[in-house]
């Protein structure tokens, strides 16, 4: 079995909805039928065969060769197997994933990993705003799984996150971890304004002091923390970081006391 490969022939003429092209939804479908799947979102009505050259036969292992910011909803709702994008992805990559691995070897647009519940999403480049965050009207953002951004993330990363782990390695925009319900957000490389704004519970782990915090965060000292040791070791073991992030006794700020106030922002002293 060879990886089912979709090679981009030319820049798409419209935004594409790639949500039908997941391991589950392509299982048992012949290649000529795959080519007929409608993925266009406008009057162009593009089909898979118009945009991609399709090769290979293993739907558990899908590769998109050549990326574009117009490739939206890559691997949406995937439950298992692997999807790899060699290039950029558009909006909502890996949205509502429940399992499997999605790798984007490039940049991802807004709402990457939105509402993820499981699996592993790794973006080697940068991610847009609202990483892991809910769409308008949804109550919770990321709900499980692991989301790694090797580059930067935009604003509102981990908004309304409820469970799981998000790691951003080269800095995030403003309001990272805003309205978090629970879960863990790791940001190395600095955050923008007011991380943890209106967070209820959850942990925001930073590699340095945040440049600003909402005044409704309070200092909670820096006792020795076994949790810091366990998460540091986990991040290194998972290949997410190379060095410990927090150290033995990180500084803690608790908040956001404008809401429940049971969240924390931790960073090394």
């Amino acid at each position, binding site marked *: 079995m060879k990886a089912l490969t979709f090679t981009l022939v030319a820049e798409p003429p419209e935004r594409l909805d790639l949500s039908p092209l997941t391991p589950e939804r392509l299982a048992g479908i012949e290649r000529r039928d795959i080519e007929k799947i409608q993925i266009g979102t406008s009057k162009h009505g593009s089909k898979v065969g118009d945009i991609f050259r399709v090769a290979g036969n293993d739907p558990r292992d899908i590769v998109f060769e050549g990326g574009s910011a117009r490739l939206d909803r890559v691997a949406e709702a995937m439950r298992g197997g692997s999807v790899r994008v060699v290039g950029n992805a558009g909006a909502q990559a890996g949205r509502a994933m429940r399992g499997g691995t999605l790798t984007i070897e490039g940049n991802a647009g807004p709402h990457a990993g939105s509402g993820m519940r499981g699996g592993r999403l790794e973006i080697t480049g940068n991610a847009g705003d609202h990483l892991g965050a809910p769409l308008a009207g949804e109550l919770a953002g990321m709900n499980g799984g692991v989301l790694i951004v090797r580059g930067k993330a935009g604003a509102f990363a981990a908004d309304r996150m409820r469970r799981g782990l998000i790691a951003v390695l080269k800095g995030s925009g403003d309001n990272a971890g805003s309205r978090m319900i629970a879960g863990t957000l790791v940001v190395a490389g600095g955050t923008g304004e007011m991380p943890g704004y209106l967070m209820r519970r959850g942990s925001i782990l930073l590699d340095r002091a945040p440049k600003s915090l909402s005044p409704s965060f309070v200092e909670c000292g820096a006792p020795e923390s076994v949790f810091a*040791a366990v998460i540091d*070791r986990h991040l290194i*073991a998972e290949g997410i970081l190379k060095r410990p992030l927090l150290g033995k006794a990180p500084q803690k700020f608790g908040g956001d006391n404008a809401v429940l106030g049971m969240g924390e922002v931790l960073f090394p002293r």
Partner: protein
Amino acid sequence: MPNVSVNGIVIDDTFAEAFGMRATAIIITAPNRKWARQAAITMTGFATSVIGCGCEAAIDVELPPSATPDGRPGCRVMIFAMGTDELQKQLLNRVGQCVLTSPGSACFAGLEGSAALKLGSALRYFGDGWQISKKIGGRHFWRVPVMDGEFLCEATTGLTKGAVGGGNFFVMAESSAKALVAAEAAVAAIGLVPGAIVPFPGGIARSGSKIGGKYKGMIASANEAYAPTLRGVVRSELGVDINAVLEIVIDGETNDAVAAAMKAGIKAVIELGPKRGAVRISAGNYGGKLGKFIYSLKDMLP
């Protein structure tokens, strides 16, 4: 088969008889080795025998920082009981009173078993609402605020139904001093065997017992056949050269662990020789009808 003699020590042609038990294990860590051991020793105190303690528990092995989940020194502690409910109760009481309270401690699962026992998922209520749940890499932890920071405790640990309790052998010597030297050598050797514990004080029992007794309500009583002071009075198992008998009781995670521990212990006694230590080794059994596991001494020789 008659008794054999190895390195001048008589090995009785008999066997140890052991029983199926439920067991669990946890890893206790602390800022240094002293406090990891302290927490482990405290929680395994008064845990020599299920007859009166509810469980049998002891340190299995000490763990270097490289082998613990948080990179601090630790101990793997094993707890054995006859039933799951009692094991659960003992685990929570002991961790709650002795590990949660110990400075700088943390507690992790030490066994992947067929079922889960509650650990942090029950102790978290100590946090009175301030406890924090964390799932890290598929493992679930509770962080409970305490006066020196946080008590980190894994939510559950594993239960094994394949554990074995009551593996044993008797170290028999000319004097109590020599018996003690031999028994200590055996305990030291068993300490290196993973998955096996010796729950009695320092790993040694001097009051090996028989089942029942002449008084109503006694579950266990003096094993007069091995009591040297009764040698002339009762039908004794002891010859004129034996003036002290000490018993090593072994609980293991598996049948193999118990056998490995018996072998290691007997090897240590034999290597010590009859001049400094024991002159004879025997074992305790109930005729082979009660226990599921039989360890024949002749199979345990080095």
